[in-house]
Protein backbone atom coordinates (compact mmCIF):
# COMPACT_ATOMS: atom_id res chain seq x y z
CA UNK A 1 0.00 0.00 0.00
CA UNK A 2 1.32 3.42 -0.92
CA UNK A 3 0.30 5.46 2.10
CA UNK A 4 0.02 9.24 1.99
CA UNK A 5 1.74 11.67 4.34
CA UNK A 6 -0.45 13.00 7.17
CA UNK A 7 0.10 16.57 5.97
CA UNK A 8 -1.24 15.71 2.52
CA UNK A 9 -4.23 13.82 3.90
CA UNK A 10 -5.17 16.70 6.22
CA UNK A 11 -4.81 19.25 3.42
CA UNK A 12 -7.13 17.15 1.25
CA UNK A 13 -9.69 16.79 4.06
CA UNK A 14 -9.72 20.56 4.66
CA UNK A 15 -10.07 21.14 0.92
CA UNK A 16 -12.98 18.67 0.77
CA UNK A 17 -14.74 20.29 3.78
CA UNK A 18 -13.56 23.92 3.83
CA UNK A 19 -16.35 25.21 6.08
CA UNK A 20 -16.20 22.43 8.66
CA UNK A 21 -15.02 22.76 12.27
CA UNK A 22 -12.04 20.49 12.87
CA UNK A 23 -11.30 19.06 16.33
CA UNK A 24 -7.89 17.38 16.36
CA UNK A 25 -6.21 15.05 18.83
CA UNK A 26 -3.05 16.04 20.68
CA UNK A 27 0.49 15.50 19.46
CA UNK A 28 1.69 15.63 15.89
CA UNK A 29 -1.73 15.47 14.23
CA UNK A 30 -2.77 18.85 15.65
CA UNK A 31 0.59 20.30 14.64
CA UNK A 32 0.17 18.91 11.11
CA UNK A 33 -3.31 20.42 10.90
CA UNK A 34 -2.00 23.82 11.97
CA UNK A 35 0.43 23.66 9.03
CA UNK A 36 -2.48 23.31 6.60
CA UNK A 37 -3.40 26.92 7.45
CA UNK A 38 -4.46 27.90 10.96
CA UNK A 39 -7.92 29.39 11.54
CA UNK A 40 -10.82 29.63 14.02
CA UNK A 41 -12.42 26.52 12.52
CA UNK A 42 -9.48 24.47 13.86
CA UNK A 43 -9.75 23.51 17.52
CA UNK A 44 -6.60 21.69 18.60
CA UNK A 45 -6.28 19.59 21.73
CA UNK A 46 -2.81 20.03 23.19
CA UNK A 47 -3.42 17.31 25.79
CA UNK A 48 -6.33 15.05 26.80
CA UNK A 49 -5.53 12.17 24.45
CA UNK A 50 -8.72 10.34 23.53
CA UNK A 51 -10.93 13.38 24.15
CA UNK A 52 -11.30 14.64 20.57
CA UNK A 53 -14.32 12.43 19.87
CA UNK A 54 -16.42 13.48 22.91
CA UNK A 55 -15.48 17.14 22.33
CA UNK A 56 -16.57 16.81 18.70
CA UNK A 57 -19.71 14.87 19.57
CA UNK A 58 -20.98 17.55 21.98
CA UNK A 59 -19.99 20.29 19.55
CA UNK A 60 -21.86 18.60 16.70
CA UNK A 61 -24.98 18.10 18.84
CA UNK A 62 -24.99 21.67 20.18
CA UNK A 63 -24.13 23.41 16.88
CA UNK A 64 -26.22 21.47 14.44
CA UNK A 65 -25.72 23.75 11.47
CA UNK A 66 -21.96 23.17 11.59
CA UNK A 67 -20.19 20.19 10.11
CA UNK A 68 -17.75 18.83 12.69
CA UNK A 69 -14.72 16.74 11.72
CA UNK A 70 -12.86 14.87 14.47
CA UNK A 71 -9.26 13.99 13.63
CA UNK A 72 -8.02 11.01 15.65
CA UNK A 73 -4.87 8.95 15.36
CA UNK A 74 -4.93 5.19 15.87
CA UNK A 75 -3.63 5.62 19.45
CA UNK A 76 -6.23 8.22 20.45
CA UNK A 77 -8.95 6.24 18.68
CA UNK A 78 -8.16 3.21 20.84
CA UNK A 79 -8.30 5.41 23.96
CA UNK A 80 -11.65 6.89 23.01
CA UNK A 81 -13.41 3.77 21.71
CA UNK A 82 -15.82 3.75 24.66
CA UNK A 83 -17.51 6.71 22.95
CA UNK A 84 -18.45 4.87 19.75
CA UNK A 85 -21.83 3.54 21.03
CA UNK A 86 -22.60 7.00 22.42
CA UNK A 87 -21.91 8.57 19.02
CA UNK A 88 -24.11 5.92 17.41
CA UNK A 89 -26.93 6.55 19.89
CA UNK A 90 -26.73 10.35 19.66
CA UNK A 91 -26.48 10.01 15.87
CA UNK A 92 -25.20 13.49 14.96
CA UNK A 93 -25.81 13.74 11.20
CA UNK A 94 -23.17 16.49 11.01
CA UNK A 95 -20.24 14.53 12.51
CA UNK A 96 -17.34 13.02 10.57
CA UNK A 97 -14.83 10.93 12.51
CA UNK A 98 -11.48 10.42 10.80
CA UNK A 99 -8.88 7.96 12.11
CA UNK A 100 -5.43 8.53 10.62
CA UNK A 101 -3.60 5.31 11.26
CA UNK A 102 0.15 4.79 11.09
CA UNK A 103 0.12 1.91 13.59
CA UNK A 104 2.20 3.78 16.13
CA UNK A 105 2.39 6.48 18.77
CA UNK A 106 4.62 8.58 16.57
CA UNK A 107 4.50 11.70 18.78
CA UNK A 108 6.15 9.81 21.63
CA UNK A 109 8.80 7.97 19.63
CA UNK A 110 7.05 5.45 17.40
CA UNK A 111 5.90 2.87 19.94
CA UNK A 112 3.42 0.43 18.48
CA UNK A 113 -0.25 0.92 19.34
CA UNK A 114 -1.97 -2.45 19.36
CA UNK A 115 -0.14 -4.45 16.74
CA UNK A 116 -2.48 -4.25 13.76
CA UNK A 117 -5.57 -4.20 15.99
CA UNK A 118 -6.69 -1.20 14.00
CA UNK A 119 -7.82 -3.51 11.22
CA UNK A 120 -11.12 -3.43 13.12
CA UNK A 121 -11.65 0.36 13.10
CA UNK A 122 -14.56 0.44 10.65
CA UNK A 123 -16.09 -2.71 12.17
CA UNK A 124 -16.02 -1.02 15.59
CA UNK A 125 -17.59 2.15 14.17
CA UNK A 126 -20.35 0.13 12.50
CA UNK A 127 -20.92 -1.88 15.68
CA UNK A 128 -21.19 1.44 17.57
CA UNK A 129 -23.97 2.52 15.23
CA UNK A 130 -22.25 4.74 12.64
CA UNK A 131 -24.37 4.43 9.48
CA UNK A 132 -21.25 4.86 7.30
CA UNK A 133 -17.74 3.62 8.07
CA UNK A 134 -15.14 3.41 5.29
CA UNK A 135 -11.58 2.23 5.02
CA UNK A 136 -9.95 4.21 2.21
CA UNK A 137 -6.42 4.86 1.06
CA UNK A 138 -7.11 8.21 -0.52
CA UNK A 139 -9.36 11.11 0.48
CA UNK A 140 -9.91 11.71 -3.24
CA UNK A 141 -11.59 8.28 -3.57
CA UNK A 142 -15.14 8.92 -4.89
CA UNK A 143 -16.62 6.79 -2.07
CA UNK A 144 -15.49 9.49 0.39
CA UNK A 145 -17.37 12.23 -1.45
CA UNK A 146 -20.40 9.98 -1.69
CA UNK A 147 -20.35 9.17 2.06
CA UNK A 148 -19.90 12.83 3.00
CA UNK A 149 -23.04 13.63 1.01
CA UNK A 150 -25.15 11.46 3.32
CA UNK A 151 -26.21 12.14 6.93
CA UNK A 152 -23.63 10.92 9.45
CA UNK A 153 -22.11 10.06 11.79
CA UNK A 154 -19.55 9.01 9.20
CA UNK A 155 -16.34 7.20 10.04
CA UNK A 156 -13.29 7.28 7.78
CA UNK A 157 -10.26 5.08 8.47
CA UNK A 158 -7.19 6.27 6.56
CA UNK A 159 -3.84 4.45 6.72
CA UNK A 160 -1.05 7.04 6.62
CA UNK A 161 2.72 6.96 6.26
CA UNK A 162 5.15 7.90 9.05
CA UNK A 163 6.18 11.55 9.07
CA UNK A 164 9.29 12.84 7.36
CA UNK A 165 9.29 16.12 9.28
CA UNK A 166 7.90 17.31 12.60
CA UNK A 167 5.72 20.43 12.51
CA UNK A 168 6.02 23.23 15.10
CA UNK A 169 3.96 23.28 18.29
CA UNK A 170 0.50 24.89 18.39
CA UNK A 171 1.01 28.65 18.32
CA UNK A 172 -2.19 30.16 19.79
CA UNK A 173 -2.69 29.96 23.55
CA UNK A 174 -5.40 27.49 24.62
CA UNK A 175 -7.65 30.33 25.81
CA UNK A 176 -7.41 31.95 22.40
CA UNK A 177 -8.42 28.67 20.71
CA UNK A 178 -11.61 28.66 22.79
CA UNK A 179 -12.34 32.34 22.22
CA UNK A 180 -11.99 32.24 18.46
CA UNK A 181 -13.99 29.02 17.93
CA UNK A 182 -16.83 30.24 20.18
CA UNK A 183 -16.90 33.52 18.26
CA UNK A 184 -16.97 31.75 14.89
CA UNK A 185 -19.88 29.52 15.95
CA UNK A 186 -21.80 32.43 17.51
CA UNK A 187 -21.34 34.49 14.33
CA UNK A 188 -22.45 31.62 12.11
CA UNK A 189 -25.50 31.14 14.34
CA UNK A 190 -26.51 34.81 14.24
CA UNK A 191 -26.27 34.67 10.46
CA UNK A 192 -28.61 31.66 10.45
CA UNK A 193 -31.13 32.17 13.26
CA UNK A 194 -33.61 29.52 14.27
CA UNK A 195 -31.25 26.70 15.13
CA UNK A 196 -32.54 24.45 17.87
CA UNK A 197 -30.09 22.52 20.00
CA UNK A 198 -30.60 19.22 21.81
Amino acid at each position, binding site marked *: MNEASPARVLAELVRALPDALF*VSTCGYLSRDLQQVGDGPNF*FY*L*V*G*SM*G*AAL*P*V*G*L*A*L*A*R*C*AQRERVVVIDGDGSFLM*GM*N*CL*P*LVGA*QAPANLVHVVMDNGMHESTGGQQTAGNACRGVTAAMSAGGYPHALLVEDVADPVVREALGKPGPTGIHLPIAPREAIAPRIAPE*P*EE*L*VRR*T*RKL*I*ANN*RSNHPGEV*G*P
Partner: protein
Amino acid sequence: MPPRETGAGLVDELIRERWDYFSGVPCSLLKGAFSRLENLAADEPASYLPAPREEVAVAAAAGAYLAGRNPVVLMQNSGLGYCLNTLTSLLLIYRIPLVLIISWRGHGADAVEHVVIGEAIPRLLDDVHIAHRVMDDVHGAVSWSTAKATETRRPVAILVKEAI
Protein backbone atom coordinates in the same frame (compact mmCIF):
# COMPACT_ATOMS: atom_id res chain seq x y z
CA MET B 1 -36.87 18.05 51.59
CA PRO B 2 -36.81 14.31 50.85
CA PRO B 3 -33.58 13.26 49.12
CA ARG B 4 -34.96 12.75 45.62
CA GLU B 5 -36.61 16.17 45.66
CA THR B 6 -33.30 17.75 46.66
CA GLY B 7 -31.59 16.18 43.61
CA ALA B 8 -34.33 17.39 41.28
CA GLY B 9 -34.27 20.78 43.01
CA LEU B 10 -30.52 21.05 42.41
CA VAL B 11 -30.99 20.42 38.67
CA ASP B 12 -33.88 22.91 38.56
CA GLU B 13 -31.85 25.58 40.32
CA LEU B 14 -28.90 25.03 37.95
CA ILE B 15 -31.23 25.36 34.95
CA ARG B 16 -32.67 28.57 36.45
CA GLU B 17 -29.12 29.90 36.61
CA ARG B 18 -28.81 29.08 32.87
CA TRP B 19 -26.66 25.97 33.15
CA ASP B 20 -28.05 24.11 30.17
CA TYR B 21 -25.79 21.16 29.23
CA PHE B 22 -25.57 18.21 31.63
CA SER B 23 -23.47 15.08 31.39
CA GLY B 24 -22.03 12.59 33.84
CA VAL B 25 -21.76 9.07 35.19
CA PRO B 26 -24.28 8.08 37.89
CA CYS B 27 -23.74 7.59 41.61
CA SER B 28 -26.37 6.25 44.00
CA LEU B 29 -26.00 9.41 46.11
CA LEU B 30 -27.05 11.48 43.10
CA LYS B 31 -29.97 9.29 42.07
CA GLY B 32 -32.56 12.05 42.36
CA ALA B 33 -30.54 14.45 40.19
CA PHE B 34 -29.97 11.82 37.49
CA SER B 35 -33.64 10.86 37.57
CA ARG B 36 -34.55 14.51 36.90
CA LEU B 37 -32.01 14.67 34.03
CA GLU B 38 -33.29 11.48 32.43
CA ASN B 39 -36.78 12.98 32.44
CA LEU B 40 -36.05 16.42 31.00
CA ALA B 41 -38.94 17.51 28.82
CA ALA B 42 -38.24 18.30 25.18
CA ASP B 43 -39.17 21.96 25.69
CA GLU B 44 -36.86 22.52 28.67
CA PRO B 45 -33.80 24.67 27.95
CA ALA B 46 -31.32 21.94 28.89
CA SER B 47 -30.04 18.59 27.64
CA TYR B 48 -28.39 15.54 29.19
CA LEU B 49 -25.69 13.28 27.73
CA PRO B 50 -25.21 9.95 29.59
CA ALA B 51 -21.44 9.41 29.39
CA PRO B 52 -19.68 6.03 29.61
CA ARG B 53 -16.76 7.49 31.58
CA GLU B 54 -16.17 10.70 33.50
CA GLU B 55 -13.50 11.98 31.12
CA VAL B 56 -16.02 11.66 28.28
CA ALA B 57 -18.49 13.81 30.25
CA VAL B 58 -15.83 16.43 30.97
CA ALA B 59 -14.63 16.50 27.35
CA ALA B 60 -18.23 16.78 26.13
CA ALA B 61 -18.67 19.73 28.50
CA ALA B 62 -15.77 21.46 26.71
CA GLY B 63 -17.35 20.78 23.30
CA ALA B 64 -20.70 22.12 24.48
CA TYR B 65 -19.03 25.30 25.79
CA LEU B 66 -17.48 25.90 22.35
CA ALA B 67 -21.02 25.87 20.99
CA GLY B 68 -22.13 28.48 23.54
CA ARG B 69 -23.63 26.17 26.16
CA ASN B 70 -23.02 26.22 29.93
CA PRO B 71 -21.98 22.76 31.11
CA VAL B 72 -22.47 20.78 34.32
CA VAL B 73 -20.94 17.33 34.99
CA LEU B 74 -22.14 14.97 37.74
CA MET B 75 -20.05 12.08 39.05
CA GLN B 76 -18.95 10.08 42.06
CA ASN B 77 -15.60 11.11 43.54
CA SER B 78 -14.09 7.86 42.21
CA GLY B 79 -14.65 9.36 38.76
CA LEU B 80 -12.43 12.33 39.52
CA GLY B 81 -9.50 9.95 39.14
CA TYR B 82 -10.63 9.03 35.65
CA CYS B 83 -11.14 12.60 34.47
CA LEU B 84 -8.37 14.44 36.30
CA ASN B 85 -6.23 14.75 33.18
CA THR B 86 -9.13 16.05 31.09
CA LEU B 87 -9.67 18.72 33.73
CA THR B 88 -6.00 19.67 33.99
CA SER B 89 -4.97 19.50 30.31
CA LEU B 90 -8.23 20.73 28.77
CA LEU B 91 -10.73 22.67 30.89
CA LEU B 92 -8.31 24.30 33.33
CA ILE B 93 -5.80 25.52 30.73
CA TYR B 94 -8.38 26.41 28.05
CA ARG B 95 -10.31 28.36 30.75
CA ILE B 96 -13.66 26.65 30.38
CA PRO B 97 -16.21 27.25 33.17
CA LEU B 98 -17.88 24.09 34.44
CA VAL B 99 -19.89 23.11 37.51
CA LEU B 100 -18.87 19.69 38.84
CA ILE B 101 -21.37 17.97 41.11
CA ILE B 102 -19.27 15.33 42.89
CA SER B 103 -20.74 12.87 45.36
CA TRP B 104 -18.37 12.36 48.29
CA ARG B 105 -18.19 8.69 49.13
CA GLY B 106 -15.75 7.78 51.89
CA HIS B 107 -15.88 11.05 53.83
CA GLY B 108 -16.48 8.87 56.90
CA ALA B 109 -16.78 5.11 57.35
CA ASP B 110 -17.72 3.63 53.97
CA ALA B 111 -17.11 0.64 51.70
CA VAL B 112 -13.40 -0.05 51.35
CA GLU B 113 -13.12 1.07 47.71
CA HIS B 114 -14.14 4.61 48.72
CA VAL B 115 -11.73 5.09 51.61
CA VAL B 116 -8.57 6.34 49.86
CA ILE B 117 -10.22 8.73 47.39
CA GLY B 118 -12.73 9.82 50.06
CA GLU B 119 -9.94 10.99 52.32
CA ALA B 120 -8.00 12.67 49.50
CA ILE B 121 -10.74 14.41 47.53
CA PRO B 122 -10.55 17.95 49.02
CA ARG B 123 -6.74 17.92 48.74
CA LEU B 124 -6.87 16.63 45.16
CA LEU B 125 -9.18 19.48 44.18
CA ASP B 126 -7.01 22.00 46.05
CA ASP B 127 -3.87 20.70 44.34
CA VAL B 128 -5.27 21.34 40.85
CA HIS B 129 -6.84 24.65 41.91
CA ILE B 130 -10.48 23.65 41.54
CA ALA B 131 -12.49 25.64 44.08
CA HIS B 132 -14.95 23.48 45.99
CA ARG B 133 -17.49 23.50 48.77
CA VAL B 134 -19.78 21.02 50.41
CA MET B 135 -23.42 21.43 49.44
CA ASP B 136 -25.34 22.73 52.41
CA ASP B 137 -28.41 24.26 50.82
CA VAL B 138 -29.14 24.01 47.11
CA HIS B 139 -29.61 27.71 46.49
CA GLY B 140 -26.39 28.69 48.27
CA ALA B 141 -24.33 26.04 46.48
CA VAL B 142 -25.68 26.93 43.04
CA SER B 143 -25.30 30.68 43.43
CA TRP B 144 -21.73 30.26 44.76
CA SER B 145 -20.70 27.91 41.94
CA THR B 146 -22.36 30.05 39.26
CA ALA B 147 -20.57 33.18 40.43
CA LYS B 148 -17.23 31.42 40.93
CA ALA B 149 -17.19 29.49 37.61
CA THR B 150 -18.30 32.52 35.60
CA GLU B 151 -15.90 34.93 37.24
CA THR B 152 -12.85 32.62 37.05
CA ARG B 153 -13.76 30.75 33.81
CA ARG B 154 -12.62 27.55 35.50
CA PRO B 155 -14.28 24.37 36.76
CA VAL B 156 -15.66 24.54 40.30
CA ALA B 157 -16.95 21.64 42.40
CA ILE B 158 -19.88 21.07 44.72
CA LEU B 159 -19.30 18.07 47.00
CA VAL B 160 -22.45 16.16 47.94
CA LYS B 161 -22.17 14.10 51.13
CA GLU B 162 -25.74 12.87 51.51
CA ALA B 163 -28.07 11.12 49.05
CA ILE B 164 -30.03 13.66 46.98
